[in-house]
């Protein structure tokens, strides 16, 4: 960073800003290792015991399993839909295309509470019972725009003449898609899977409305907050989730950048 020197005030401002952003996240692991059932300073000492309660908790395991089922299904469905939408949006022109692509992206900005309430009404009106399936439905709705955006960039960067060359060399449209298009957008697909998985894993509001008897992890955590003695255990769980989410996001960004590089177009717009 050359050029203008940052003034002292600007440095203070940036420092405060970063503290505000990240202090709560840092408190989480801090108390997860604190040897006291009360969440307050001063810290009492180092312990692994809260992590042990996480390992022993049967209903927590159940919630984790549910969350994984929901997150994996959501990732697969949202990415599949995203591939269709992105492909249509970049390769074909049809009447009302702009409007339609816009509608695909709208759930990204709709308040989740609105989506949660309205989906609950629809599900109940249809006479369906609440289950993991209904949560998956809600999560696919909010993840598809993200998948479409990531995959849209991947398809956009794909040189159209690569596909034409494949057809020209005697392949059909289908084998061209499998041998040329898919391998070249694969990093984009992986990035989309990871991002949708991460969003679904820690989504609370929609899951809260659409959960039946089987809770996902965030809904389970919410339920546990009524018991003060379990809070340090939740801190430990939160720490684990934080680390897993961060790792997944780093992976997603790595694959997205690799997709951009593969196309030989250098860096495209940054997502993070």
């Amino acid at each position, binding site marked *: 960073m050359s050029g203008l020197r940052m003034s002292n005030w600007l440095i203070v401002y940036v420092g405060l800003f970063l503290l505000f952003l990240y202090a709560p996240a840092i408190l989480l692991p801090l108390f997860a290792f604190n040897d006291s059932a009360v969440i307050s300073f001063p810290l009492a000492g180092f312990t692994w015991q809260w992590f042990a309660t996480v390992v022993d908790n049967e209903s927590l395991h159940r919630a984790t399993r549910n969350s994984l089922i929901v997150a994996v299904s959501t990732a697969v469905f949202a990415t599949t839909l995203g591939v269709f939408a992105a492909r249509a949006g970049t390769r074909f022109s049809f009447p009302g295309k702009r409007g339609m692509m816009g509608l695909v992206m709208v759930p990204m900005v709709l308040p989740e509470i609105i989506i949660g309430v309205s989906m609950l009404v629809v599900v109940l009106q249809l006479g369906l019972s609440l289950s993991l399936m209904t949560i998956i439905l809600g999560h696919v709705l909010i993840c598809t725009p993200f998948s479409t955006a990531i995959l849209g960039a991947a398809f956009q960067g794909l*040189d159209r*003449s*690569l596909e*034409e*060359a*494949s*057809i*020209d*060399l*005697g*392949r*059909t449209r289908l*084998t061209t898609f499998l041998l*040329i298009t898919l*391998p*070249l957008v694969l990093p984009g697909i992986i990035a989309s899977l990871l991002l949708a998985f991460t969003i679904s894993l820690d989504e609370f509001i929609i899951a809260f409305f659409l959960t039946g008897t089987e809770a996902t992890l965030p809904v389970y955590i919410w339920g546990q907050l009524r018991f003060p003695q379990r809070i340090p255990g939740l801190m430990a769980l939160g720490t684990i989730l934080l680390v897993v989410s961060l790792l997944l996001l780093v992976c997603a960004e790595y694959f997205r950048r690799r997709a951009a590089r*593969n*196309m*030989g177009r250098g860096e495209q717009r940054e997502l993070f």
Partner: protein
Amino acid sequence: MSETVNPTLPIIRTVAVDKSFGSVEALRSVSLEIEQGKFFTLVGPSGCGKTTLLRVMAGFEQPTRGQVFIDGKSMEGVPANKRPTNMVFQSYAVFPHMNVGENIAYGLRSKKTPADRIATLVAEALEMVGLAGYQNRPSHALSGGQRQRVALARALVLKPKVLLLDEPLSALDKKLREQMQSELRNLQRNVGITFVLVTHDQEEALTMSDQIAVIFGGEIAQVASPEILYRRPNSREVADFVGVMNFLNVSVLSEHGTRRRVEVEGLGIVEIEEDQAPRGLVGDIVAGVRPEQFTILFEDRASADRCCSGTVTEIQYFGDMTYYAAKLEGCDKTVTISMRNTAGRRTLGPGDKADIGWRSESVLILS
């Protein structure tokens, strides 16, 4: 090299091909015959429809009206992957996730060629384009010129009846482009496959082709050999596009059978033959003279049969050539004159008087 081609038929024939994209007419009634084994070039300014015509031949675009025949067979409803043509794309379209060998084997694999045969054919193709032993190179490690060769080998290894090339040299720098021009020309002679090249560079078209089709605004303006195209362009537009042309006002004096007398501004009365006025002497006509058809006379006055005088207004020095702009005496026209800088020849400077020699067969009447 290509199998069962009837040598008497044109290898590609387009009959009154129209192509519209929405309300834009990209091609208008294009009828062309391309002879087997020739290096054929489609040349025109950008947006003239030359690439569209190539894509119609390849099967990537369907003509709105009209028909395309390849080797005598109608291509109506025949998709690109079933046509006996292969294409070299402007961006080369070398598959980035495959190495050089896999790229070249790609088309052979779709034809279910046995594996040991593929290895031989790939090695031969690479040798043909001067990349012997490059099988295992990753595509991203190739330079522009090497990519171009891989794209060529990948298409030629399938032994198509026609190779279509879409501005294949436009992305290369000048030196490499000139080298590739002569390599492409030699390659075409060696394999004997018909090449159809698209370019916007008229110089490239002249140096490489057997036949050239000039396209303006979606229509064929002229089809001719490079020499005819340069020496006897059939319209003012073609003359202006191919090379440099001096245009001078002209009026018809008399027309008796094959003998025509015209008066050209600054040059005087000229008697011309029939082929010097390809479209006759009617309508809005103008006289054209190429810069090298004028000679600045230093001592050797005898070499020109006609002479006029002028004043040099500007010179451009190119090393081997000098281009003069000279204002002709008796009129307000400035003409461009090119002179080879042979041993001992002087160059003139602005303001110098010059005697300009020319011959009556150098004058073209264009409309």
